[in-house]
């Protein structure tokens, strides 16, 4: 049995009331419920307030560059598939700076859990529009309102038939924790877009704004129905559905790699006899 206390309790750099606190709680609960020990987990994050989360719990951590957590996670998972690799970063990091990596990770279907703290605004750089900000969202950098239409990560992921696509809400900790736990056990890329308030810079999409709208999908919802899932992915209005929106059983990247069927790269030495054979092929 893993105890939640193993993951520690640290002072953070977040504003009081930040949605990140609830997400951190849900993550720790999901790890405990998954019976994972701190050393079995590798968190990879980018830059932003969300990307600091791994510093506030006990685990292996690689806190890399803005937008680049998915490639780092991909490399680490391929080197050692026994690691439980979790990417944790924000909407700017994953959908803006790292947009190409998001698409490529879905196509690759690497066995990594992706947690995107989505508060629809840039927090660390003090309040510019993010890729998910709604049209017309006014900031100091976009005084006339954001003119670009918002990126819908859930719809894009479903359209690309990602293996596991979920939306959670920081105000529903137990529900979110359940999603994360399912994501961890999913074999392949598990995407969990997590709606959360930014108390300092998003005065539109506040905690109560989300609370009024976020509603768990009914138990009768069939997440394997792709056509239905496409519709669900676009529901964003008075009601925002949360839960597992789409899933399938695509084999993960690692499962398809013949080399990894022999074990983790990190455990094996290079076969110098074979290297010599390769060299002799040039005679």
């Amino acid at each position, binding site marked *: 049995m893993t105890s939640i206390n193993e993951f520690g309790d640290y002072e953070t750099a977040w504003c009081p009331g930040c949605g990140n606190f609830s997400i951190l709680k849900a993550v720790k609960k999901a790890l405990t419920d998954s019976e994972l020990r701190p050393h079995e987990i590798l968190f990879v994050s980018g830059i932003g307030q969300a990307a600091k989360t791994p510093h506030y719990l006990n685990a292996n951590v690689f806190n890399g560059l803005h937008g680049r957590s998915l490639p780092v996670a991909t*490399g680490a998972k391929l080197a050692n598939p026994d690691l439980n690799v979790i990417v944790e970063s924000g909407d700017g990091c994953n959908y803006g700076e790292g947009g190409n990596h998001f698409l490529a990770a879905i196509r690759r279907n690497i066995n990594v859990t992706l947690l995107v703290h989505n508060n629809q605004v840039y927090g660390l750089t003090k309040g510019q529009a993010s890729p998910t900000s709604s049209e017309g969202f006014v900031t100091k950098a976009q005084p006339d309102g954001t003119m670009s239409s918002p990126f819908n990560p859930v719809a894009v992921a479903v359209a690309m038939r990602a293996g596991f696509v979920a939306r959670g809400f920081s105000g529903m900790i137990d529900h979110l924790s359940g999603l994360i736990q399912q994501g961890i056990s999913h074999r392949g890329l598990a995407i969990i877009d997590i709606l959360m308030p930014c108390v300092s810079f998003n005065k539109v999409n506040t905690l109560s704004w989300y609370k009024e709208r976020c509603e768990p999908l009914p138990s009768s919802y069939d997440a394997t129905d792709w056509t239905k899932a496409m519709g669900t992915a676009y529901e964003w209005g008075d009601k925002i559905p949360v839960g597992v929106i789409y899933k399938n059983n695509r084999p993960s990247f690692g499962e398809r790699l013949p080399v990894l069927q022999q074990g983790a790269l990190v455990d094996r030495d290079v076969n110098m006899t074979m290297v010599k054979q390769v*060299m002799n092929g040039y005679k």
Partner: protein
Amino acid sequence: MGKNKRHILNILIGGEAGQGIVTVGNLLSKSLVRSGYSIVVTQDYQSRIRGGHNTFSIRVGTDKVVAPQEQADILVALDRDTVAFHRSYLSPNGLVVLDDSLDINDDSFLKVPFKEITQKKFSNIAALGVVCSLLGLNESLVSEMIGEALGGDEAGLSEENSRVFIAATAWTDINAPSSYRLATPVNTINGQLMMNGNEAIALGAIAGGMKFAAFYPMTPATSIVLNLVHHAKKLNLIVEQAEDEIAAINMAIGASFAGAPSMVATSGGGFALMTEGISLAAMTETPVVVAVAQRPGPATGLPTRTEQADLEFVLHAGHGEFPRAIFTPGTVEECFYLTSKAFEMAEKYQGPMFLLTDQFLADSYRAVAPFDIENSPKANPARPIDISSPYKRFEITENGISPRLFPGMTSNLVVGDSDEHTEDGHITEDLSVRKQMVEKRLRKGEGILEEVIPPDFRGEDASDILLISWGSSMGAVQEAAARLRSDGEKVATLHFSQVWPLSPGQFMNHLEGAHEVISIESNATGQFSRLIRRETGFHIKRKILRYDGLPLTPEYILEGLKQIQVSEAG
């Protein structure tokens, strides 16, 4: 008869892309290497898949050949452009071998009735037959090679190729002069390999312990990773084509952080995208080997040609201050050993290490002695046994090197951060910690400096002329110097196979002892001579520079020296 045989010859095969120039070039090169000869191959091709003018030139010698040559002794023209472009480079007693259907009237040409010998599609194999007969190579050895290389599943194709080859040699035996026969090789190396620079980099990487590589295709670096892919299953390697170069370097860093020695390979433009990742590798102290195969820039430049203009770029790439080493192989052998060495150094000093090569060396096949795989340098992840508790990934140490563990391999937690961090890897803005961490990272540079490979000095001290070179021009400079010495001039050479860091104590006496120092580089501004001045204060005033996309040759260097002498006399 025997005394008229040739000891060194340059064969240039030219034609359109799609005519099988590279196939015939490879087959001829391998036939020569298996027959015990030494070769230097230069490939010049245009950035397109079909059409365009391409050449494959093989300089072959009975003794060690070290440099390419511009003049052709045998010019094999599979198209009219080859004659038009290269006829002026024919040596005084040179021979043009021509498809007689090309209808160029010149009695001095050896016009081969390719149409009679072959159907049009095998004209490259017919050309191979002609050259083999001209050189007097063992026909059964070449025939066997054709079977090996082109046999494959289509037995009929192999038979047809053999028939064409035999018919072409038979025709040539009767109709061609015998004055191009090669003498017997001297100093034959048993079981010599035929390998180009990029193949040797790939082999050096796997011998050095590489387990993971990520890349985005870019000429002229792509063949490094294609060679790795070719051997990946046998050697349990993972080689992943990333969505872009930014992803490639970050994947390599992720894999290395988790414990798999990793590399990336790219050219200037792709490396530009990677530079943020270089800085990340330095800050997180993650080993990564970066191979940069140079081509002429700026921007897309000349994608398939050669240059040495990214020295300053690689030297300064990545924001912030951190130590690095830059290896610049001068030969195919050095491509192998320096790549292995880069893996050893990356692992030892926990950071990015660079291998700077170029298109000329990347594509240049050579005959090389088999490498000492067992004793070549290895990435040797020192798994620390006594870990103080709690584990500190970035423990401050005297030499700057901290004990490195891999996540998940022990119960210790491994934390790395691109932010400035504490000894245990967590983000900090404690400015006294910042200062200590900067100093710790830079202390690793002192160790790297102690291990610098000294430049190779050849000749006598107090020479009249000292030629300075780095990277792939090594052979051209050494041959130019040898020719001058045989004319009685006092010429020495100083070649750098590692251009950073520089350890002036290793070479200042040579610079100061020479009457005149001349820097030879494939760039327009003399980047290396500028670096030497910055580091030592020594001003190299005279330079021979080449930046037309073609490799430095002994002829080019000798001509450059002549011009320097003329301008000084004037």
